[in-house]
């Protein structure tokens, strides 16, 4: 059996699956049930400063992008940070940590951007016995209008400043949660690192409007006839998050900074994506909100079986293994030639590959042969773009075959070279570098 234990930013947990700071981690009742189900850790829903708690809307907080059979692709919320009294939350955190000492208990925080505010809350949090704190610099709605959440996360100098205060006034590991609503994720990540962060977690939710009600022509969802942009998450955001995780891992200034991956993790494959791109663990919310806490058992089972089948003893055995395969476009090998290949035995003759290629790409797939319905790749037109593979409803029916060196590319008439060559030296590149002799 593979060992799923992780130590992330010095925080130990029995598996890499944590519940993200969100409604599922708002109170003892939920967190206790989560730990019973098997979650490795939680990030307690964001606490604000002492005083009257925030209030939430009394209408819909959530919206979703659904398939016709109502599978959830994307999820949107306008909920704020915890609306329960600070002392009640702190008391429950203390109790739960005492009951579940082997689980990671991280507390999410968001207070005004003043040294005094952070200085006030940090000792109270540390006193609960929790394992670490996560700074919520990502919440994109409501709190950001009050100068917190994403309003901080969008200004690297603020990130650095607040992170430094936290390291100064607390002994706890500090995880900085980043907003994706910025132009370059490397800048806030670098700021967190300069401020002394032990780790970053990403992504928080993406600014979003789910749609418009066609009958009322109001945005959706609305409360009292009006709506506000929410934060978008769920399966649809994973590719965006993965890119940001990889960017941080590839950047010289932030490489090696521990990353907790967040965004659209619904199964072990999703977790694998993040970990192989360098994340030390993952955080989950949407999948739990759709299926309940038991879903973690499918995640740990899948990841464990995968690791066994690959011979990985621990998470560290494959963490970051895919990161070196991510590069800039200019370094891609332009001498690697692929052609689509349709397996006629498994082809069901739907013709989607043909019409996609014919209408929108390279006219490289037939629709008939000898007067019969027949779909076949024309190697002399195919550029190996992968569109047909993508639209084919049959798994593995269309594959891309990479030509071996020495083969002739029927499209260009040129023999495939064994030597890689990229844009940096390509004759069409006016900025090309001289090729080494």
């Amino acid at each position: 059996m593979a060992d799923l234990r992780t130590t992330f930013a010095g925080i130990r947990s029995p598996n890499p699956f944590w519940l993200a700071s969100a409604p599922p981690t708002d109170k003892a009742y939920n967190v206790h049930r989560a730990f019973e189900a098997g979650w490795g850790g939680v990030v307690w829903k964001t606490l604000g400063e002492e005083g009257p708690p925030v209030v939430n809307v009394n209408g819909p907080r959530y919206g979703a992008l659904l398939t016709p059979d109502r599978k959830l692709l994307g999820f949107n919320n306008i909920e704020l940070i915890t609306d329960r009294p600070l002392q009640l939350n702190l008391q429950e955190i203390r109790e739960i940590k005492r009951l579940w000492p082997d689980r990671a208990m991280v507390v999410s925080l968001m207070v005004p951007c003043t040294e005094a505010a952070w200085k006030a809350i940090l000792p109270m949090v540390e006193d609960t016995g929790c394992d670490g704190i996560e700074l919520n610099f990502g919440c994109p709605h409501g709190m950001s209008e009050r100068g917190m959440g994403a309003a901080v996360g969008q200004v690297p100098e603020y990130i650095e400043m607040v992170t430094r205060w936290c390291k100064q006034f607390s002994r706890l590991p500090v995880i900085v949660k980043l907003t994706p609503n910025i132009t370059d994720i490397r800048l806030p990540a670098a700021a967190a690192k300069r401020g002394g962060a032990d780790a970053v977690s990403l992504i928080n939710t993406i600014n979003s409007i789910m749609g418009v009600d066609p009958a009322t022509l109001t945005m959706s969802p609305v409360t009292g006839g009006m709506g506000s942009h929410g934060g978008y998450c769920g399966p649809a955001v994973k590719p965006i998050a993965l890119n940001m995780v990889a960017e941080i891992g590839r950047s010289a200034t932030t490489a090696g900074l521990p990353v907790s991956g967040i965004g659209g993790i619904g199964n072990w494959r999703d977790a694998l994506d993040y970990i192989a791109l360098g994340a030390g663990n993952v955080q989950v919310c949407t999948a739990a909100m759709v299926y309940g806490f038991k879903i973690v058992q499918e995640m740990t089972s899948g990841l464990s079986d995968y690791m066994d089948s690959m011979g990985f003893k621990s998470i560290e055995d494959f963490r970051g293994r895919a990161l070196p395969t991510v590069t800039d476009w200019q370094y891609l090998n332009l001498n690697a030639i692929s052609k689509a290949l349709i397996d006629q035995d498994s082809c069901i003759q739907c013709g989607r590959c043909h019409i996609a290629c014919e209408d929108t790409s390279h006219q490289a797939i037939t629709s008939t042969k000898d007067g019969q319905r027949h779909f076949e790749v024309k190697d002399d037109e195919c550029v190996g773009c992968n569109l047909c593979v993508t639209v084919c409803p049959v798994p593995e029916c269309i594959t891309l075959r990479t030509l071996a060196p020495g083969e002739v590319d029927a499209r260009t008439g040129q023999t495939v070279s064994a030597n890689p060559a990229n844009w940096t030296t390509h004759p069409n590149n006016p900025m090309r570098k001289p090729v080494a002799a």
Partner: protein
Amino acid sequence: MAIAGPQPTSTAAPVVLAATTPSAPPATAPDIRPARLPAGHYVQAFADAAPRYSRSQALVEAERCLYCFDAPCTTACPTGIDVPSFIRRIADDNLRGAARTILESNPLGGTCARVCPTEVLCEQVCVRTAQQGKPVEIGRLQRFAVDAVMDQPISTLLPRAAATGQRFAVVGAGPAGLACAVGLARLGHQVDVFDARPKGGGLNEYGLATYKTAGNFAQAELDWLLGIGGITLHTGWRLQDAAQLATLRADHAAVYLALGLDRVHDLGVPGEHLAGVRDAVAFIADLRQAPDKATLPIGRRVVVIGGGMTAVDAAVQSKLLGADEVHMVYRRGPEQMGASQAEQDWALTHGVVLHHWLAPEAVLGAGGHAAGVRFARQRWADGRLQATGTHETMAADMVLKAIGQKLDAALLAGTGLALQGGRIQADDDGRTAVPGLFAGGDCRLGGRDLTVEAVQDGKRAALAMHAAWAAQAHAAA
């Protein structure tokens, strides 16, 4: 214990052929009576065989459609409905658009969705079968879309062209006639539709099993189609001779004959006219028109002779009326049956016993009433059907004949129409040998006698009749 199946007759006690020889009084009177089953049974038994999809069922099924390029289902549909488009529109919550796609190709899309043998048409070629062993349920999706808009005037879906002031005549208000009438009405013409029966709809109203078009659907669809405007339905009007047709021709720009086939083939065997022997078409028509199925008499043992869909409809409904035993007997093998595999399965699941390779030889009687049928076993040899020399007899209280229908050729004498194989010769656009006379549906030579083919006939004929009129008008100008 009832006799369960065919009994060899070679050694059995002979049963006298009643039609030719008066028989001795039967030991027991034929057991034919109504209300064999508890009163509450009938409504359930004759209810919708495949109820309308719920919205969520429709959305999930619609999602299975791959929106194929040059879709095989569309090619397989005799009316050429753009199936991927209408299914996509269901998925997009655009039910009016879905229905319009269907109705533009097939104004009787509601009926066809219910009665088409989709397993040998669109669904047979669905590519999902190759991948998942199960086609997209196109027929049920089609029903979902059409049913969804039937509370809205059809004129909002199929608008009419500007009025031409021309009148056309259609004889027969079945699927072909109605499709032709709707097609002509859409082109701006006035149409007189004549039908011999008290109600329009033809076989939709009188010829289909109740559970296929439950809820008085045929009349609902007819009324809805007539809402397009410009169509006048004249019921109780029967075409009887050439002179009558000539008058019709003189009063209209063109005449479309969609007469159907109103005569039933005889078995041509002794005993055929005994009491208790009925033609299945009339049996089905009675069933359709009876508000309370419990009032319909049915035999304890029923033998249905024939292998087509009418035979299946008669056999299954006999069972539903409470017959203990129903035997459906066909003279050839299962592959040659007119009823599709799905229809045969439907019969089997309702407890009908199917027999093949048995040709009726005589209806046996007792006391002037049918008591059984003797069959001669057949085989295929030397390229033709041949009797093997062995015989089998089935006891029956009721015998239903469903071996096909034919045109009453006599009433077309003197019209100049050419007949072949008992049907009117006409091209695919319905043009006959007589200018201004068009023909289609079951009375036209060719095709498989499917409702959907009749609709296509009517649709094409409307265009051809319009084109002929327009060409003439143009030449006159």
